């Protein structure tokens, strides 16, 4: 019974604000069914607050901005396809039949690891429940003045004789664990955040770093292999004084492959080398770029997470136990959430202070009311629905978008604000950009002062409650 009560109230999944204060019998997918005690059971991914898209009923997740993943996949498929069509027959005849076998194996490996990097939860931390958030607020020394943004909240811990500062995430309402960073592209805190990679269309974090590393290493092997084979092929054809032009005319596909591989191989190899260094020193791209452990400030700082042994570092990063996904996408939302708070959106900011003080003593109703605070106060509100829009069997609730209309428009403009920064990189066909892309200072909003914070301030500004602060 108690377990039942506890599970029913899952505040982090409750925030699905309804536009109409009075529940109307309405064909909406969210909780507008006060009459029937249980409607169609919905999974938690439907109400996930981050900017992610879910497919196959929550089994597959990608970042909302899929970046250039189709381009990456397209380039790999086209190059490999041309290789198998144009080069393999000749090389099998003149050299050995191992070549398509090796090529095929590498190709399959690359595609699988790419898809796994893109579709795996990178290590997203679910947002704090309202109870947790208010508990933390109580512990923090609050000046009580809600009319201005308080200074950033930090907490210090000592890890292996190093002082590490933990920052408070205003979106997720919690102190971020060490090595965790908030990605504003995905609007999630990601554990062991490395970078957000547009080429794979996802963040690279604790859970999918090994896939990412395997992907770039196998891709560098594949690119180098194809490059070598194509060169050999053309060299063999051009033998006997026939010349390169003749060879290219005979095998036009090889020319395309040559160009793609030539430009890609350096950047991919460079990226692999860089990440091999990171793995060996147990660093993340984020930490390396920010110079967290490089000791440039003059003090004696070392990486507290490194095991001081290259082999052990590699093993722990790449072969360590696979942590589980913390967001439980496919879990079912408690049926009881259909008993929605009837409070209109306007009332919530005033309720905020009340429930902050007395979240638990108001009982179930108070919990439900306070639970609906996070989405409206944070910019994740409109993303509760739109990111999960494209799936076929899910009815995108229009009522959500109308209720948070203002905030949603802001979200879109914020999204647009970030895209121009990325469109430059996306339009580059060459994979040389991969090196730059991997550089998080270019595209990864690891610090709270990301451009996304700018336009969204208006949305947060008029919320007014003590919770709503830019992080």
């Amino acid at each position: 019974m108690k377990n039942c009560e506890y599970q029913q109230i899952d505040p982090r999944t409750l925030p699905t604000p309804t536009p109409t204060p009075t529940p109307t019998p309405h064909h909406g997918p969210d909780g507008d069914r006060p009459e029937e005690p249980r409607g169609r059971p919905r999974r938690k991914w439907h109400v996930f607050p981050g900017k992610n898209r879910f497919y196959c009923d929550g089994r597959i997740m990608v970042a909302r901005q899929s970046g250039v993943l189709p381009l990456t996949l397209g380039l790999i498929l086209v190059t490999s396809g041309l290789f198998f069509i144009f080069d393999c027959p000749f090389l099998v005849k003149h050299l050995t039949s191992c070549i398509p076998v090796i090529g095929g194996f590498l190709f399959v490996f690359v595609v699988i690891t790419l898809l796994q990097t893109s579709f795996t939860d990178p290590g997203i931390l679910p947002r704090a429940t309202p109870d947790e958030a208010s508990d933390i607020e109580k512990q923090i020394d609050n000046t009580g003045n809600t009319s201005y943004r308080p200074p950033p909240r930090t907490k210090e811990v000592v890890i292996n004789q190093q002082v590490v500062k933990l920052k408070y995430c205003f979106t997720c309402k919690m102190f971020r664990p060490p090595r965790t960073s908030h990605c504003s592209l995905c609007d999630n805190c990601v554990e062991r955040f490395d970078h957000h990679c547009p080429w794979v269309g996802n963040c690279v974090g604790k859970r999918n770093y090994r896939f990412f590393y395997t992907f770039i290493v196998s891709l560098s092997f594949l690119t180098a292999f194809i490059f070598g084979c194509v060169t050999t092929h053309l060299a063999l054809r051009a033998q006997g004084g026939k010349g390169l032009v003749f060879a290219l005319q005979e095998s036009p596909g090889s020319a395309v492959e040559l160009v793609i591989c030539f430009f890609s191989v350096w950047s991919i190899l460079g990226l692999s080398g860089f990440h091999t260094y990171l793995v060996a020193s147990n660093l993340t791209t984020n930490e390396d770029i920010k110079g967290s452990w490089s000791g440039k400030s003059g003090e004696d700082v070392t990486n507290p997470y490194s095991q001081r042994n290259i082999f052990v570092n590699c093993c722990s990063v790449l072969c360590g136990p696979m942590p589980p996904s913390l967001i439980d996408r496919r879990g079912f939302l408690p049926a009881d959430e259909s008993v929605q708070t009837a409070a209109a959106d306007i009332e919530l900011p005033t309720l905020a202070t009340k429930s902050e003080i007395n979240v638990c003593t108001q009982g179930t109703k108070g919990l439900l009311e306070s639970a609906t605070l996070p989405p409206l106060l944070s910019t994740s509100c409109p993303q509760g629905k739109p990111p999960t829009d494209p799936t076929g069997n899910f009815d995108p609730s229009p009522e959500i978008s109308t209720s948070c209309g203002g905030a949603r428009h802001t979200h879109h403009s914020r999204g647009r604000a970030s895209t121009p920064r990325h469109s430059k990189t996306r339009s580059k066909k060459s994979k040389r950009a991969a090196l730059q892309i991997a550089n998080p200072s270019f595209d990864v909003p690891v610090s709270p002062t990301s451009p996304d914070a700018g336009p969204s301030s208006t949305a947060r500004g008029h919320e007014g409650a003590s919770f709503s602060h830019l992080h």
Partner: protein
Amino acid sequence: MAETHSLHDLQQPTVSSKVFVQRDYGSGTISKFQTKFPSELESRIDKQQFEETIQTLNNLYAEAEKLGGKSYLEGCLACLTAYTIFLCMETHYEKVLKKIARYIKDQNEKIYAPRGLLLTDPIERGLRVVEITIFEERSIGSGR
């Protein structure tokens, strides 16, 4: 809405407050919870008992995240199969998580529920906190 509210009261004991046991990051990013005894629980449960529960949880998480021969083997095998093995096989971590869930259920039934407390499995809170719900002491005949 008022009706529903009282219906809830009839069905379940009232939650009086929640206590959150935060993570202890002193040893790095491994999953470990602070064993400091929260003052709100002083009247409800023995300090030793509580610390023992948390310590056992910490040990179980350490077992799940242990870097050893077995986990390396699993990792290497997974790498060779392009990680497709994760689709069919339950990882060591998942097995230990099930063990933890059973342990928490057991602790709740034996120790915490009789004292009007409820432990929440940290995995349901993203491994951020151990949430302990404190139920009001209910007098006989109230609301039933």
